């Protein structure tokens, strides 16, 4: 087992291409959570929302034999959970940590429960057809970059478009300015005539919808099936990546790809029986890096200033 099995262009190109593909579900969740947190709401329920999204996506795809409808179902399922989260944290002003953690349990439990009930248990779980791969003519012939960037499943391009849209929405529109104001200094937004509650509801629901979409991409477009615990910690990684990305869509893309590549690498190393670096340490990497980033940002400056605090009108 030698190093040149790894350090050759064939391996690396396949690795990065694979990494980009694997990054999509997490990227969608990170984008979604960025919206929620930019508006000041801390939604830790991503693990459960991805689970329910994955299930909804799979179930609808299987029943209606249409993968696109499945993705929409994932979006809607996530949005529903977002509505619950928004109602409790914005209207009832409950503790956001506890509320969103309960969504994890609810999402995992409901998805497992419903899957078992509808599809039962079998040694050969039902599968679905995914979405087509799109090879961009011309561009995909470029050496090295071609196969890495231009020969992907449709959802990859979709995700990249969403990154650009998210960036534009947050930083180039008046709505985005309102969202960021609500997350930094809600009373200033209120005084400017902005409806803080409405902005937060929108962002939390949108965020959860994107997260649910991420889950359905995983089940429909990548694994083509649903398994209990298939999310395998991606929801938690997404939460960490939001911080790593400094709440910016551009860095979210970078972070998700980094995670994807680490994930792909870890698969391949395992398959090759590579022993020099235990793959578990690779798996740890996103988390350790995020802790270091958090520390270096000295806590108080990290993220929207009003994150996690229910907004109470108190003037005087």
């Amino acid at each position, binding site marked *: 087992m030698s190093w040149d099995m790894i350090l050759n262009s064939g391996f690396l190109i396949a690795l990065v291409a694979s990494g980009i593909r694997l990054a999509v579900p997490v990227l969608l969740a990170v984008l979604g959570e960025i919206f929620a947190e930019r508006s000041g709401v*801390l939604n*830790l329920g991503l693990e459960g929302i991805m689970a329910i999204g994955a299930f909804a996506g799979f179930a609808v795809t299987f029943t209606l034999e249409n993968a696109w409808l499945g993705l929409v179902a994932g979006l809607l399922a996530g949005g529903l959970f977002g509505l*619950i989260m928004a109602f*409790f944290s914005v209207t*009832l*002003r*409950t*503790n956001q*940590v*506890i*509320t969103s*953690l*309960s*969504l*994890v*349990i*609810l999402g*995992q*439990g*409901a*998805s*497992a*429960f419903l*899957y*078992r*009930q509808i599809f039962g248990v079998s040694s050969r779980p039902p599968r679905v057809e995914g979405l087509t791969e799109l090879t961009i003519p011309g561009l995909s012939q470029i050496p090295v970059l071609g196969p890495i960037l231009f020969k992907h499943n449709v959802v990859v391009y979709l995700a990249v478009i969403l990154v650009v849209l998210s960036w534009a929405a947050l930083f180039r529109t008046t709505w985005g300015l309102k969202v960021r104001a609500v997350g930094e200094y809600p009373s200033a937004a209120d005084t400017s005539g902005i409806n803080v509650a409405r902005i937060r509801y929108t962002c939390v629901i949108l965020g959860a919808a994107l997260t649910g979409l991420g889950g359905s991409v995983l089940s429909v477009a990548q694994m083509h099936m649903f398994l*209990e615990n298939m999310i395998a*910690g991606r929801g*938690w990684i997404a*939460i*960490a990546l939001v*911080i790593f990305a400094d709440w910016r869509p551009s860095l979210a893309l970078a972070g998700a790809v980094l995670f994807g590549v680490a994930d792909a690498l870890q698969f391949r190393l395992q398959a090759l029986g590579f022993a020099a670096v*235990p793959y*578990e*340490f690779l*798996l*740890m990497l996103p*988390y*350790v890096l*995020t*802790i270091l980033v*958090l*520390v270096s940002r*000295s*806590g*108080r400056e*990290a993220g929207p200033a009003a994150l*996690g605090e229910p907004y109470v009108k108190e003037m005087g």
Partner: protein
Amino acid sequence: MKRANQHPVWRRALFKNLVIPALAVLLSLALGVVLILVVRVNPLDAYRALVKGAVGSPRALVQAALRTTPLLLISLGLTLAFRCKAWNIGAEGQFFMGALAASWLGLALDGWPAWLLLPAMVVVAWLAGAAWAVIPGFLKAKRGTNEIVTSLLTNYVAIFFVSYLVRAPMKDPEYYLPQSAPLGPAATLPFIPGTRLHIGLLLALLCVPLVYLILWKMPLGYRLRVVGTNPEAARYAGISVPSHIVIAMVLSGGLAGVAGMVEVSGVHHRLMTGISPGFGYTAIVVALLGQLNPVGVLLAAYFFASLVIGADSMQRVVGLPVALTEVIQALVVVFVLASDYLTRHWEK
């Protein structure tokens, strides 16, 4: 209708600590009925199987008790932390570090007698869990870093670390699966005479009055509660808020670590990644349902444990997936939160 502060204190405490959680449980079970009907199963059959599976046989009771033990230990620790508003979400990782430390010691000191080895294992487990919890605690105290996120992240580091250890350095050469060598008889928690329950249960039960003592009968607990309810007043009274956050994390991390030791030494007898079906996370819900009160937490832990045991049976008998219990758990939290909101308004 009388306003809240016209009722005597004890009646209000009773309401808050008993009636609300009970109502929340009932409501979620009721909602569970709806879910069960949706999938065309008879709710009566389902719940009968659930209850029978949970408490209907000595075996079920033993299983429930065994499962209550780690839940109880961790959630008691979380009670201490949450009372101080130190949101320790890292109990899962602290559990694993404790399990790791205990098994390492247990395997390393194989020749020692049980009466020496077991307490030593408890101590190192405590220390490992506490040390692991110091990381987010210290970061919060010194730099104001959000302990929710940092403690969550440390979970993964811990779990992957243990995963690596049982795959490689600590792996049992005689088996194919990633797990450590078995702990010797001296490193195994003995049974309570006449039962199939290990004494870890007694340790957990002992911690109930212990946590009560700490919180309400010791100056430390008093200070923790002041910091948790009003940090401004704590500063005014000369109490150091950052120090107490670290103390709260250390205490809860230690208990989570001990829970890890108990599971390894009493149930699995080896270190492996499957020793926790999410105890660290479920304990958060247990602590909340128990209204951060040791006795309430005991009841809540037993409730959740038997719920899971019963669900196993329910699955075998009527075919309802075990996952239903997770849904009920989540619903319970949701109802407790909603009722907290209502009581806050009722008291105005």
